[in-house]
Structures are given as structure tokens and as C-alpha cells.
């Protein structure tokens, strides 16, 4: 029997505030905790971004150490403290048990523990910003020797140690979460919910968790070695006279994690998009099987492409060609996935709700992001594009889409389910359009800077004669970025306002969606299903069934149990 149910018995007797909101083992509460923490970190990361963008438009606004620090922390925060907690921790925790008809995660206590580890890690990260000697400023990729002897090359020793420590704790928490997800989905599915009936979101979460589980390990090993380098003065990555040591080894370890990591956050985002798009275009996924298989294929391929981040970094040129081939190969499953996604719109009757608008924009941006990956994957043009702004623009078109557009689409979509209230639709639409415009305004010019050969992480473009004439581009990007952040801040106000004072959402299924979570009352009580249990009868996307009156069939139905279960209601 599972901890979940056991804890139900325990919880039934305690009602303290601490237990209910802070140290709750309820997957929904934990998911919301992840969501809020992630949003808070997102504000921090965004502010940093704005600060150094202003500096790029008007060099001298920051000192160059500050600039490097901010760039480093922006990258790290947006990857590890925003995208992962919100997409895996937040949506994963809230939706997976609901979607598979479970009452809670397999290991609720582990779940809670993982959140608090994550919380501590973010606290340590923020502390590391203020320690004497300054914060770490060697880029979020933490390349040695800069990071292996930071006292000499950056003048920041303790900051680096704390940064690595925070990273390690974050990974530990996400590992626990991953184990939890996989176990839950494999063992606690509702009756009749076979693997091929799982909603695509759940599939994506599982593949992501597996990727993370198997890719992060070498990086943890590398991080331990790096810490030893800094603390005990070993020579794993440092090169000194007569001492063996190889900085490139770190690059291999890091990118062996780093590339799957991108897909770890990409897949859940795709999952969210599929859920949203099917719901609002009232069409089933064009080819469910193709998506699932393409995802798995991409996941496996993603372990074979890591060195395309190091084409010109001293790896064997022939192996560079091999990695170039795999990199180009991996574009094929994604192009299939995107085509399927596009065809999911086709033939539907499309409701342009805020969630849908965000989903559409995210889809279009994914097209740009994916295509702009080709010149970087092709080894010949990467000679020129490596570490230029072209890379920056490329991964902003992918990662920003993942971490912001898809996430906000998901928030608009599941907000009634999470909090039992609504967000104002008109505001949502305006928000979507503004986000779209400003986002392109700040991301797209990057491609031109890249073509002009503007290297990344430059404090100021004015030092180089061949870059000075592009200063106005930086100014344009900065203005757009500032407006973009302002829009999001306004959205956050509306978001928190609606949580407490939004209009009540009466019906459990406002969007007429099919998957199981819409059968539960919103917000779902503790143990989700009360004295009922969901039983699944058909696949997840049964839309466009019998035209006129009702055009969708829910995935399953609730059946009354013999003995009533009493979890306490929130």
C-alpha cells in the first residue's frame, strides 16, 4: 500500500497551518509552492536581464564585473530556478496525479522534501550573490579554469563555491522529483488507463524526468571534481606547470548534461501546448503515436549531440563532423512534432482564448527557434556563429518560449482548476499580444548581430570598430526587453489578484476538456477524488465526435467506491 494513502490517514487527524500550507504532502500544494517560488526567481532573473540590457544600450551603467555576474546569474536562474521548477515541479506535481487519476504522488514525503531542498538551494543562490569577494561571474556554463581558480581569475572564491553548492542541491531536488514522477506514472494509473492512453503532457513529463535522471549524473560527478579543485586545490580541470588537467573534460561533462537539459524543459512545454491546443481547437492530436515516438527518439538522440557546443573547442575535428550529423538528425523528430502540432489546428473550430493565443505564439516561435538551430548545428557555419549573438537569439527563441510563453499558456488554461477562480479574458488577450510583440522586438535583432559577428557576453559593443555601428540594435533590444518585463509584472499582479479575488469558477470543466483532471472538483480536495474513483474508458483526446450538440467525450467517468474515503477538504 502506498505512502500516499497512509499519509491520508495521518493527515486526517492534523489540521495545523504549518502542516496544511508549509509542510503539506499534498501534491497540489507542493506544485503551487514550486510555482510561486519559480515566479519569484523569474522576477529576480528578469530584473538582472533588464539591468545588463540597459548597460548594453548605455555602457557604463554597470561595472564589467557586475555585468558578467548578472549575465551568469540570469542564465543559471532562468534555466535551473525558473524553467525546471515551474514546468517539472509546478505543473508536473499538480497535473500528473490528476491526469492519471491517482490520489497523490507515490512518495508524498519525498515530494515535500524535494521542494524544501529546492527552496534552500534558491536561498543559497541568493546568499551567494552577496558574499565577500563578489558573486561568481564565469558564465552559467561554469567553464574552468575561470571557475577552477576563481580567486585568481575572477577574485570570487566563496561565491563560486556557494553557486556550485546551490546548483548541486537544485539537481538533487529535481532528481527526487523525477524518481517520484516515474514511479507514480508507472504504478498508480487509474483503471483502464494504459500507457498509450496517457495524455501527451504526462508522456512528456516522464521522458523529461528520465532524460534528467540519466544526464545529470555525469555533471554531478564533474561538479564534485570542480569543488575539489577549488577547495583542495586538485588539478582535475586546472592546468599548471607539470600538472595534468583538462578544461575540455569539464565541457564534455557539462554539455553531456546540458543538451538533454534543454529537452528536459522543452518536452513538458510541448506537452502543455498539446493539451491547450487540442482543447481550444476541438480537434484530437493529429497523430498521437507519432508524437510519442518522436519524443522518445529525440530523447535518445539528445544524448548523442552534446559536442555540438564545442565544435571549435579543441575536440577531434572528425568527431565534430559526426556530432554535426546527429545534430541535424535530431531536427527531424522535432519537425515532425511541430507539423503534427500544426495539423492539430486544422479542421477544428478555434477559440482564441488567452491560453490559445499564447499557445499559438509559442508554436510559431518554436518554428523560428528550431530552424535557427540549423546554422549552428551545421559545423561549417558554426565556425563563424559559435559564441556569437546568433546563439543568444536562437536559445532565447527556444528557451524563452518554453519558460514563459508555454508556461503562461498553461497557467491560463489550468488556473480555474488550480484555484477555482477565473482570470479576466480581455486582459489575457492584451497580455498575449503585447508579450508577443515585445518579445520579438528584443529577441529577433540578435540574429542580425550574430551575422555581424558580435560575440556573446560583451560588456559593450563600442570597443570594436566593426561593431560600433550596431549600437542602435542594442538600444532597440533594450527598450523591447524593458517593456516585456513590465508587461509580465502587470500580469503577475493580475494573477495574484485573481487567486484571491477573481470571479468564482462554478463548473469543474469550464473549457469542455476531456482529460481526467477536469472530472475532479476545482480546486480538487485533498486526495482528489473523495469517495469516488476515476475509471478510464477511452483515449485522452476524443474531440470532434458527433458534431452539433456535444463535441467531446470525457476520457473516463467517476465511480462510487464501496467504502467512502474521507480526506479533509481545503
Amino acid at each position: 500500500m502506498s505512502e500516499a494513502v497512509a499519509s491520508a490517514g495521518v493527515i486526517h487527524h492534523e489540521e495545523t497551518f504549518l502542516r496544511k500550507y508549509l509542510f503539506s504532502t499534498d501534491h497540489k500544494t507542493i506544485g503551487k509552492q514550486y510555482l510561486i517560488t519559480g515566479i519569484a526567481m523569474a522576477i529576480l532573473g528578469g530584473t538582472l536581464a533588464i539591468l545588463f540590457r540597459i548597460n548594453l544600450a548605455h555602457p557604463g551603467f554597470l561595472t564589467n564585473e557586475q555585468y558578467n555576474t548578472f549575465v551568469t546569474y540570469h542564465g543559471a536562474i532562468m534555466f535551473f530556478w525558473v524553467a525546471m521548477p515551474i514546468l517539472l515541479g509546478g505543473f508536473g506535481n499538480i497535473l500528473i496525479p490528476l491526469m492519471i487519476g491517482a490520489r497523490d504522488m507515490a512518495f508524498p514525503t519525498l515530494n515535500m522534501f524535494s521542494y524544501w531542498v529546492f527552496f534552500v538551494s534558491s536561498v543559497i543562490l541568493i546568499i551567494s550573490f552577496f558574499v565577500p569577494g563578489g558573486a561568481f561571474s564565469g558564465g552559467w556554463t561554469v567553464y574552468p579554469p575561470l571557475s577552477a581558480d576563481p580567486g585568481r581569475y575572477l577574485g570570487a572564491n566563496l561565491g563560486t563555491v556557494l553557486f556550485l553548492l546551490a546548483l548541486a542541491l537544485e539537481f538533487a531536488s529535481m532528481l527526487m522529483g523525477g524518481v517520484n514522477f516515474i514511479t507514480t506514472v508507472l504504478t498508480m494509473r487509474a483503471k483502464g488507463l494504459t500507457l498509450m492512453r496517457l495524455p501527451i503532457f504526462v508522456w512528456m513529463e516522464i521522458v523529461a524526468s528520465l532524460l534528467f535522471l540519466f544526464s545529470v549524473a555525469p555533471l554531478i560527478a564533474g561538479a564534485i571534481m570542480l569543488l575539489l579543485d577549488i577547495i583542495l586545490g586538485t588539478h582535475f580541470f586546472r592546468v599548471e606547470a607539470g600538472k595534468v588537467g583538462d578544461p575540455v573534460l569539464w565541457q564534455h561533462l557539462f554539455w553531456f548534461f546540458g543538451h538533454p537539459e534543454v529537452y528536459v524543459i522543452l518536452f513538458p512545454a510541448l506537452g502543455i501546448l498539446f493539451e491547450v491546443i487540442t482543447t481550444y481547437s476541438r480537434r484530437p492530436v493529429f497523430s498521437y503515436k507519432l508524437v510519442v515516438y518522436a519524443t522518445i527518439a529525440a530523447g535518445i538522440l539528445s544524448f548523442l549531440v552534446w559536442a555540438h557546443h564545442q565544435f571549435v573547442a579543441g575536440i577531434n575535428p572528425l568527431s565534430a563532423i559526426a556530432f554535426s550529423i546527429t545534430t541535424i538528425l535530431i531536427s527531424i523528430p522535432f519537425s515532425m512534432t511541430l507539423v503534427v502540432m500544426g495539423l492539430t489546428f486544422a479542421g477544428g473550430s478555434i477559440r482564441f482564448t488567452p491560453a490559445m493565443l499564447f499557445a499559438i505564439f509559442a508554436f510559431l516561435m518554436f518554428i523560428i527557434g528550431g530552424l535557427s538551430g540549423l546554422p549552428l548545428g551545421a559545423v561549417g557555419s558554426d565556425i563563424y556563429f559559435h559564441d556569437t549573438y546568433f546563439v543568444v537569439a536562437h536559445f532565447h527563441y527556444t528557451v524563452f518560449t518554453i519558460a514563459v510563453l508555454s508556461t503562461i499558456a498553461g497557467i491560463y488554461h489550468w488556473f480555474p482548476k488550480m484555484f477555482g477562480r477565473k482570470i479576466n479574458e480581455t486582459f489575457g488577450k492584451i497580455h498575449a499580444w503585447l508579450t508577443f510583440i515585445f518579445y520579438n522586438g528584443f529577441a529577433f535583432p540578435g540574429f542580425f548581430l550574430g551575422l555581424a559577428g558580435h560575440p556573446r557576453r560583451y560588456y559593450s559593443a563600442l570597443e570594436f570598430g566593426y561593431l560600433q555601428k550596431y549600437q542602435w540594435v542594442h538600444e532597440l533590444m533594450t527598450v523591447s526587453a524593458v517593456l516585456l518585463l513590465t508587461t509580465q509584472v502587470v500580469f503577475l499582479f493580475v494573477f495574484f489578484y485573481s487567486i484571491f479575488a477573481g470571479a468564482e469558477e462554478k463548473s469543474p470543466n469550464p473549457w469542455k476538456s476531456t482529460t481526467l483532471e477536469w472530472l475532479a472538483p476545482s480546486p480538487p480536495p485533498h486526495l482528489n477524488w473523495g469517495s469516488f474513483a476515476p475509471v478510464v474508458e477511452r483515449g485522452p483526446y476524443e474531440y470532434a465526435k458527433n458534431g452539433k450538440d456535444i463535441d467531446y467525450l470525457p476520457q473516463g467517468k467517476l465511480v462510487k467506491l464501496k467504502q467512502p474515503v474521507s480526506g479533509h477538504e481545503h
Partner: protein
Amino acid sequence: MLPQDISQHGYLVDRVIKLSIWGIVVVGIVSFFIMFYILYKFRRTKNPFPLSDVPSGLKKVIFIDYVMIIFDLILLFMSTWAWFFFFVRPVEKIKKEVQEKGEKFVEVRVIGRQFFWTVEYPGRDGVFGTQDDFKLGNLLVVPEGYNVFVKLTSGDVLHSFFIPNARIKYDVIPGRETHLWFKPAKVGKYEIACAELCGAMHYRMKGYLVVLKEQDYKMWLDSAPFSEISFDYLDDDKIKFVKGGEVR
């Protein structure tokens, strides 16, 4: 957009860049148009009830996948060609070829340090380790039309030796020796950038590539390192240090 190409073989890279950029622009525009068409045609107000199946015409959209595959193959071919030309062949082999062809070449060593390039010249005799070697900071002077072989090493951290005008870039790794070669085909004064984060002054790590006419190069070499170079065809305004926008 691309800076002027001054090297003999830069066109190889340019070709790949142009191909890939135009390819993705075309594919992107096509798919965008299809998307807008779908979104417009099947909007709620016009099409209140979903069709039971995707119209067969639209199913043909899958051809985009095949287009992508073909495009990928072409791209791979071209890019591998360029890569092969620049990096796969070992430098010794290239050198031998050059000597057989009777072309002239010069060798230099470049040491990346925070935050400048030290360029070591073999001097007049063209051999390292003799009395007339000399070192210059941030100044790489090469004759026009010669093959230039560059040995890259690092004094402290990772750097990346990037000449935008020659379409050349390679990382500079402590404890290793990496190689580059290119053939400048146009006299003038160009810039060398560092493309790998190397510390606080990364954005200041700027070197100069000066391509001289052959006789001018010889003339300069005779008096180097004790002579500054100033030839009329170099727009030889002195380097200003710029920060915060204003020129000091």
C-alpha cells in the same frame, strides 16, 4: 550584414551561412503562411463545429518534413566541406602541400592572456628560437597573399581566437596547442576578437590583424619590433579606448 571577407577561402564558410540562412527563411515563411491560413480558415466564428477529419489537402503539409530532410542533407554536405577544408586536415599536411605548390607562408605563435594576445614572430629568418624572435602585444602583421599558420596557446584561461573578416575561429586552451591557418587576400587593418568568456575585461580583448603588401611587410620586419607601422593604405588612426560611449 556579414563583415567584409578578406581571406582566400572565407567564401566556403559564407556559402554555408548564406545557404542555411536562406533555407530557413524560406521554410519559415512557408510554414508561417500555412499556419495563418489554418488559423484564419478554422476560426470559431466561421467554423463553429470542428470537422470530423483533417481536410486531405492540408495533410499534404507533411511534405515540409521531406523538404527539411533534403535541406538538411545539402546543408550537411556543404558545411562538412568547409569544415574539412579548414580544420580536419592536419596543419603539417597543409604546410607540405603549400610548399609543394611553391606558395609562400609565414608562421606565428599566438598566446592568449587575460586580456590581450601576445603574438610571437620568428623574425627575419622565419625560424623560432633564434635571436631575432620578437613579441608584439595585440598586433598580428602578415603579408598579403601568404599562407598564415597560427599556433594558439593560452597563458591562463580559455579564450577563442576570432577573426570575423577571415571567417576563422578556434578556442585557445591552456595546456594544449591548437592550430589555425588562413590566407589573407586584402591589405588593410582588421580586428581580432575573443569569443570565449575569459573574465572581466573579455569585451576589451581586442587585437589587430594588419595585412601589408609584401615589400612593406619586409620593410616592417627589418626594423621590428622597434618600429611602429603606419602605411597610407591602413586607415591608421590611433586606437582610442572607449568606455561609456564617449571617446577619451
